[in-house]
């Protein structure tokens, strides 16, 4: 095609004169519009190439032998018979990779495969690479492992009581090896203020463990090429950290390791650290010289886990007679499972992240994470704070009732506000929580419903806040947390290279929107190459809701540099000042005379002629001076905090205990919605996930240490028929540090679902559900117990009595 034809084609695609004049009226051209995802069609039509879709010539398939014991010493492994099995190419065991790994550099406590000890049923012991999975499976049966079985602990109480039987060697000689982390922090005079409080809510809460249930199981492919370079394709959401740990464990030069993250079928925190399969495919590829793939079975995904910690939380919350929170005293036991994972951070988060959106005069938390012989817990959407958020929001509901204050009003009376610090010294800038409360109150007709719906129906409210990334990276360093490199082609196409992980949340799309906004190119002129460590600058990964804020700012930074060059070059030609030139809608045009314009590609060509090849890097780093001035004060410190409020409306079946959640109204302050459709998607997905944990999910174990139900048939997540109507209400507080004012939207909106449902159940039938999940047997039992207390005269009937007088009694 001739250049002239190109020009015609581009002009045909570009904005019309009228649209350009309209564009001048708008603050943004792309940001804030309801646009498609850049990867939406490929994924929804099944054409995206996921990791397991990749097949390389000569590829072997590997399987991992797993421990059948929850706790045992390995006294011997014999792989000789397995090696002779048909189709087997290589076998590795723990001693082939004798270097520890872990996501936190100061807590590396895992081996790629266990060397001396297994710590849960499913812990990896050996891996076989063979011509196909069947051959690998057959060989697994031939590996002989001698175990010396040890007593095992499935709950923290048992593990705490038996320091003589440590799951891990104690870090200090006198320490209990079953304690993974203990944190105690106090802000203000908690005991005194509790004593002075008008009312105190006191209760014990239990949050059952849950797992992520991403639909795509973990998968990895290793390839060791002739030049001695290792490439690993993996379903990871942290390619950079995986890159580092692979090099460490395999003893390779970091520069000779490449990690590529293909499109991912969901992660939710379940793929945010290295797993045994990545090391095994790498090592087996190095041994065999062939590509090696491992795809977890669904059962193995349940064993890999790293899901939500079960937490036992004892809370006391005191308020004055006006409902102002005087003191919160929290004591929490975290059931960590067999390893550390992010455990140190989880332990801090279990206390650090509930100090907003409310003011509190004083606050104390004491959190202990305990090892148990179960799959390791870790970060799941809303890392560490979903559980305590359940406790504190139900506590507030109790206080509101005791003081006869509407629970929304009680929350208003404790507003933290903006440009302030929390009781634990975190800096909060933008804060749209008040607007969130108002939005759900209005949309749900709260005032007409609260305590006024008939028996069996109820509404509940809850609020929350969450971080938009963490100010401090996982391994201490001064380098940027996120970086973007742009490269501009003469055709007008812009390539974006970025280490950020698209895990379904829309990070690739977000980058495209920003480039399109800044450089005026049509959206489909933007190409994203993400998460390939050979070609993309470092981004630390998709965790703690950091990407929009950090990567978005890095992208604006890079685009601004090119924008400046392009505008300067065009302005020189027109003899005007650069700021008179605008880039939008596929044009460079004169803001004073929109008839003067040229296709954006011509503008790029002018800039390239003037400045040389167009390209730029941009980066974002967090402020390193914003945190609490105490040990641990950096954990939970974020550049910006998002805020959420939910109202849930439920119907409780008195006779059966079934809880039907009819609707959840979700108001979320995301700073600015870069694309409202994606923000709403995150809000709905979050509320759904919280709802699932509230009514159904339980990641539990049988006494033998076996997982109760490692399948998607028996581990219950709600079907579409079970899912309530979800109404998303976006609140935009426009944060001063977020890109265009944006904050996170992927995790925060999950938090209030659970306490809002718990509070709604109370409003419906007058029972406090302090233990998750709210399954029919539990709710039914609570209703029975209340009925007995009512019968004994200890309680007035809740709302009006239901019509039916005879309850079909059990044990009759």
């Amino acid at each position, binding site marked *: 095609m001739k250049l002239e034809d190109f020009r015609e084609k581009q002009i045909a695609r570009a904005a019309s004169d009228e649209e350009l004049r309209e564009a001048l009226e708008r603050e943004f051209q792309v940001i804030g519009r309801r646009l498609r995802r850049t990867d939406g069609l490929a994924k929804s039509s099944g054409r995206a190439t996921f990791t397991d879709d990749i097949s390389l010539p000569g590829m072997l398939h590997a399987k991992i032998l797993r421990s059948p014991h929850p706790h045992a010493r390995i006294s011997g492994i014999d792989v000789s018979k397995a090696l002779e099995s048909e189709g087997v190419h290589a076998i590795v065991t723990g001693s082939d990779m004798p270097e520890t790994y872990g996501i936190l550099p100061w807590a590396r406590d895992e081996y790629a495969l266990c060397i001396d000890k297994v710590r849960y049923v499913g812990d990896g012991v050996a891996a076989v690479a063979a011509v196909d999975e069947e051959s690998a499976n057959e060989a697994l049966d031939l590996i002989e492992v001698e175990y010396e079985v040890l007593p095992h602990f499935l709950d923290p109480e048992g593990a705490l009581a038996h320091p003589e039987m440590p799951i891990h060697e104690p870090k200090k000689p006198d320490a209990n090896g079953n304690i993974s982390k203990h944190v105690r922090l106090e802000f203000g005079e908690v005991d005194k203020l509790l004593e002075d409080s008008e009312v105190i809510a006191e209760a014990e809460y239990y949050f059952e463990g849950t797992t992520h249930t991403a639909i795509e199981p973990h998968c990895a492919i290793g390839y060791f090429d002739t030049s001695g370079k290792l490439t690993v394709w993996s379903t990871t959401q942290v390619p950079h950290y995986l890159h580092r740990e692979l090099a460490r464990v395999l003893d390779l030069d970091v520069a000779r390791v490449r990690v590529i993250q293909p499109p991912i079928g969901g992660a939710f925190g379940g793929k945010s650290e290295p797993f045994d399969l990545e090391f095994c495919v790498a090592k087996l590829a190095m041994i065999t010289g062939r590509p090696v793939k491992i795809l977890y079975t669904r*059962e193995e995904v349940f064993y890999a886990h790293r899901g939500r910690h079960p937490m036992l939380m004892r809370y006391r919350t005191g308020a004055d007679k006006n409902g102002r929170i005087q003191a919160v005293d929290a004591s929490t036991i975290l059931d960590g499972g067999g390893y550390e994972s992010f455990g140190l951070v989880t332990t801090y988060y279990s206390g650090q992240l509930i100090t907003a959106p409310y003011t509190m005069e004083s606050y104390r938390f004491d959190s202990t994470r305990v090892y148990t012989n179960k799959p390791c817990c870790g970060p799941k959407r809303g890392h560490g704070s979903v559980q305590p958020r359940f406790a504190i929001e139900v506590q507030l509901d109790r206080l509101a009732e005791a003081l006869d204050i509407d629970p929304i009003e009680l929350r208003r009376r404790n507003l933290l506000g903006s440009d302030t610090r929390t009781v634990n010294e975190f800096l909060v800038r933008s804060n749209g929580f008040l607007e969130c409360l108002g939005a759900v109150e209005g949309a749900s007709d709260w005032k007409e419903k609260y305590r006024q719906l008939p028996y069996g129906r109820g509404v509940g409210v809850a609020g929350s806040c969450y971080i938009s990334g963490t100010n401090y990276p996982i391994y201490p360093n001064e380098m940027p947390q996120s970086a973007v490199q742009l490269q501009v082609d003469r055709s007008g196409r812009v390539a974006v290279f970025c280490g950020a992980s698209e895990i379904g949340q829309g990070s690739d799309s977000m980058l495209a929107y920003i480039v399109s906004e800044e450089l005026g190119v049509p959206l489909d002129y933007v190409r994203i190459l993400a998460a390939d460590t050979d070609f993309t600058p470092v981004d630390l990964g998709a965790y703690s809701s950091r990407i929009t804020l950090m990567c978005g700012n890095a992208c604006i930074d890079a685009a601004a540099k090119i924008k400046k060059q392009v505008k300067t070059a065009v302005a020189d030609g027109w003899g005007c000042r650069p700021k008179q030139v605008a880039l939008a809608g596929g044009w460079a045009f004169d803001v004073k005379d929109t008839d003067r314009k040229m296709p954006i590609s011509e503008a790029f060509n002018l800039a390239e002629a003037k400045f040389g090849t167009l390209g730029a890097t941009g980066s974002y780093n967090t402020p390193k001076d914003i945190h609490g001035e105490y040990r641990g004060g950096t954990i939970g410190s974020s550049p910006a905090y998002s805020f959420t409020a939910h109202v849930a409306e439920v119907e409780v079946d008195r006779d059966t205990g079934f809880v039907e959640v009819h609707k959840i109204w979700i108001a979320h302050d995301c700073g600015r919605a870069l694309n409202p459709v994606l923000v709403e998607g995150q809000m709905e997905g979050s509320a759904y996930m919280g709802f699932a944990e509230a009514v159904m999910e339980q990641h539990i174990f049988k006494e033998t240490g076996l997982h109760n139900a*490692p399948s998607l*048939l028996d581990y219950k997540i709600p079907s579409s028929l*079970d899912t309530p109507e979800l109404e998303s209400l976006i609140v935009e507080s426009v944060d001063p540090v977020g890109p265009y004012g944006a904050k996170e939207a992927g995790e925060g909106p999950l938090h209030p679902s659970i306490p809002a449902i718990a509070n709604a159940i109370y409003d419906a039938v007058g029972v406090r559900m302090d233990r998750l999940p709210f399954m029919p*047997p539990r709710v039914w039992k609570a209703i029975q117990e209340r009925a007995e207390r009512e019968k004994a005269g200890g309680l007035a009937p809740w709302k009006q009595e239901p019509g039916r007088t005879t309850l079909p009694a059990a044990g009759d």
Partner: protein
Amino acid sequence: MLRLHPYVYHRPRRLDEALELLKEHAGDVLPIAGGTDLVPNMKHGLFAPGHLVALRGIHELHGIEERDGELAIGAAESLTAVASHPLVNDHLPALAHAASLVAHPMIRNQGTLGGNICLDTRCTYYNQTHFWRQALGFCLKKDGDVCHVVAGGTKCVAAHSADTPPILMALDAAVDIASADGERSLRLSDFFTADGIWNKKLERHELVTRVRVPLPSPNLRATYTKVRERKSVDFPLLSIALAVELADGVMESISLIVAALGAKPRIIGGLDKIAIGKKPTDDVLEEVAKQAYRQCNPLDNIIVEIEWRRAMVPVYVRRSFDAILAEPRATA
């Protein structure tokens, strides 16, 4: 992913060919219809036959027709077909309803009525992968010799978990059974046994070929209720089939079946005295509900508390009555 073992897949076109294959490979063969239960079970290592005989391509196993005062349904008809067929909906809406409650739409498109009737019993210690069961030390039903549900138990108590048999039993259905050696029929009420390992009076080389249900009298009202955690996908935690003939407000016959407890759907006995000849008043129905409660003892074969499952028996018996008394045409 979980892999299947190698097997020879036979696709006979005629019933006699299928029956011959089942006889020829006896001990190393299983029939496969929709495969929605068998395939995952084979992936779990619960069955590893060298031969599979596919049934859906056999013409004689299809067809839904009214004849001789009965509705006859071919065993290879899909559950979707049973749920949506006009004849079933006209004459046996409760059966159509039960079929519509099995699993989810894709499984109903694939799964068959015969397969549902012959569904293997289920247990939390059995429907697991080979790795899991091996770590457990296996169980009575497969590869082991202990029961993990009943300590010291010598009889498998895996749960009957199919949705269509209870209502078929309440509707007095019979099944036609064929083998290379001949044909026979059996009332479905006599079909199941209390042995969780193989809870059917069906030889391994026999096939259920057809289900026959008497066309009900105009007075018959029937309903099927399934209690499950989710509104789709799940097997029952408890299921109740109820059929009552109601003339001039008086109960002339009653059939109440409670399933998903043990290996055999429980036919609640002693109801004649309580209910027959009486009006369905609150007192009478309460007695029926209590009778069902007394006769039902759920076990820990399903991972939901047995105390609750038992307490739900009378609740859902009452609700089943509520349903048939409120909307006779919708359910009868």
